[in-house]
């Protein structure tokens, strides 16, 4: 990231940090909820961008990990295991394991086949969740108690939970930043840029892509663990393919292959979808659709690419 990028990210995250006090000051605590949800999706979008924007892997089933992470919190909770120090790592491990299986098969294909296979796996998990009657099946299941952290943090406090999510978002961005600039990151980016050249200079890219896929899965699994705590509910809907589309759109809207882009994309898409447009007209989707089309056509590098820049 350039110095300008770091500055932008710092300003953006600083603004997010101001949401709870501002919401309290204007007497609208509701915004804490809204932006917590936005940041959870931002983590999911950042994780997708690692493989999509940097690795060129067009995974169209990324919401699967959101679901796996959520169920990895909800199912232990159902059996009385409410410790977040157990649940959250479990969510990440389970998602990484799911990504290992999905990636090991789908990464052997490319192009449209890859998109379709990742979508198919996500659909399989979606229907698996529906079929699990014990855990609510189609309807999903209420999370009786939020993850407990032995008194370290209390997620029942909305503002505390908000800052936990913010810290994790910053962590996801920092990890992403280190990762994409490491030797490992250069391999992933090289594979996106020119696979046959990578092979010719001596790289077997498959294991690197697979590990990137697992890292992205684990990160998105954490977002799933946050999401189930946020909604106090887990549902197969977390894994619906339209959800995968949403996350992908946040990445594309904000700017693929940048780390701040997906965060910006998550904020803009959610604010438009949840706050601005529905308040204005019930036909808001007729406005959102063309807007998204225009961004894709005219801002090839996403919204982040529209910001002024000095160099690159």
């Amino acid at each position: 990231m350039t110095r300008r990028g770091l500055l932008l990210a710092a300003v953006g995250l600083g603004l997010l940090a101001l949401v709870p006090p501002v919401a309290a000051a204007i007497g609208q605590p509701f915004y804490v909820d809204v932006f917590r949800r936005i940041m959870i999706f931002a983590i999911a979008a950042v994780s997708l961008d690692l493989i999509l924007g940097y690795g060129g892997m067009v995974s169209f089933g990324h919401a699967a990990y959101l679901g796996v992470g959520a169920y990895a919190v909800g199912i232990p909770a159902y059996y009385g295991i409410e410790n977040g120090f157990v649940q959250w790592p479990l969510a990440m491990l389970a998602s990484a394991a799911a990504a290992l299986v999905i990636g090991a098969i789908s990464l052997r294909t490319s192009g449209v086949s890859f998109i379709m296979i990742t979508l198919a796996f996500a659909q399989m998990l979606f229907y698996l969740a529906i079929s699990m009657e014990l855990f609510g099946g189609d309807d999903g299941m209420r999370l009786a108690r939020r993850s407990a952290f032995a008194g370290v943090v209390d997620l029942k406090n909305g503002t505390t939970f908000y800052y936990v999510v913010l810290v994790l978002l910053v962590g996801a961005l920092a990890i992403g930043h280190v990762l994409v600039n490491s030797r490992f990151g250069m391999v992933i980016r090289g594979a996106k840029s020119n696979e046959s050249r990578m092979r010719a200079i001596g790289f077997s890219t498959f294991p690197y892509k697979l590990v990137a896929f697992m890292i992205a899965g684990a990160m998105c699994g954490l977002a799933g663990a946050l999401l189930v705590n946020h909604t106090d509910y887990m549902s197969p809907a977390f894994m619906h393919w339209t959800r995968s589309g949403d996350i992908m759109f946040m990445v594309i809207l904000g700017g693929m292959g940048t780390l701040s882009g997906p965060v910006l994309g998550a904020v803009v898409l959610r604010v438009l979808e949840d706050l601005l447009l529905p308040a204005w007209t019930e036909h808001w989707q007729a406005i959102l659709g063309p807007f998204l089309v225009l961004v894709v056509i005219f801002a090839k590098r996403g919204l982040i690419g529209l910001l002024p820049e000095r160099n690159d």
Partner: protein
Amino acid sequence: MADALLEVRGLTKSFGGLVATNHVELRILEGETHAVIGPNGAGKTTLITQLAGDLRPDAGTISFAGRDVTALAAPARSKLGLARSFQITSVFREFTALDNVALAVQAHAGHSFRFWRPARRDSALRRPAAAVLESVGLGARADVLAANLAHGEQRQLEIAMVLATRPRLLLLDEPMAGMGPEESQRMIDFLRTLKGAQTILLVEHDMDAVFALADRISVMVYGRLIASGPPEEIRGNAEVREAYLGEDAT
């Protein structure tokens, strides 16, 4: 007879009814510059692609440095020291020239499951990469994005990436493709500096380049090698003249 670095036996590859490589026998000796010439569609690139491991032959064997590599994939062959350049420029366009070469160095510097240190500040990669870039004459262009380099410079970058893998055999697929006369001459001069120190298999259309550089020349027509020998001999070979060099060849 000196040991062959690369030994190709009975190599055959067909695409439908077209036999692109027809029982090719080829020996490349350590240290020589060996050119393969032939008219368009003779199967030269198909040959290189099989040697590099991007295409599996239907029949025949390829041994490299005394080892049968026929079943090895391209990355494994690169690790053994076979390095190819592409006829159609193939670089990492969104990386700088130095990044391109550093990635080639990285490919041969152990595994890349290294997640922490920034690769662009890793002198173990950057220093050798900069040296190779300097040697092909792109030192001043190190920080330019590959996409923004002139065509001739991108061809030089191709060669730099090949050299950065410290290969034992260079497979150069028309390194002069699309170059102007001046650029071509510069490339010929550069390749001449590698002669002797590097073993080179050169596929090239530019006859000036071939006769200026090659120790031995093989002529390929319709997938077959019809002749192989030192440049004088090839120039004088009636069959070759008829098949390829044409009337105006001298």
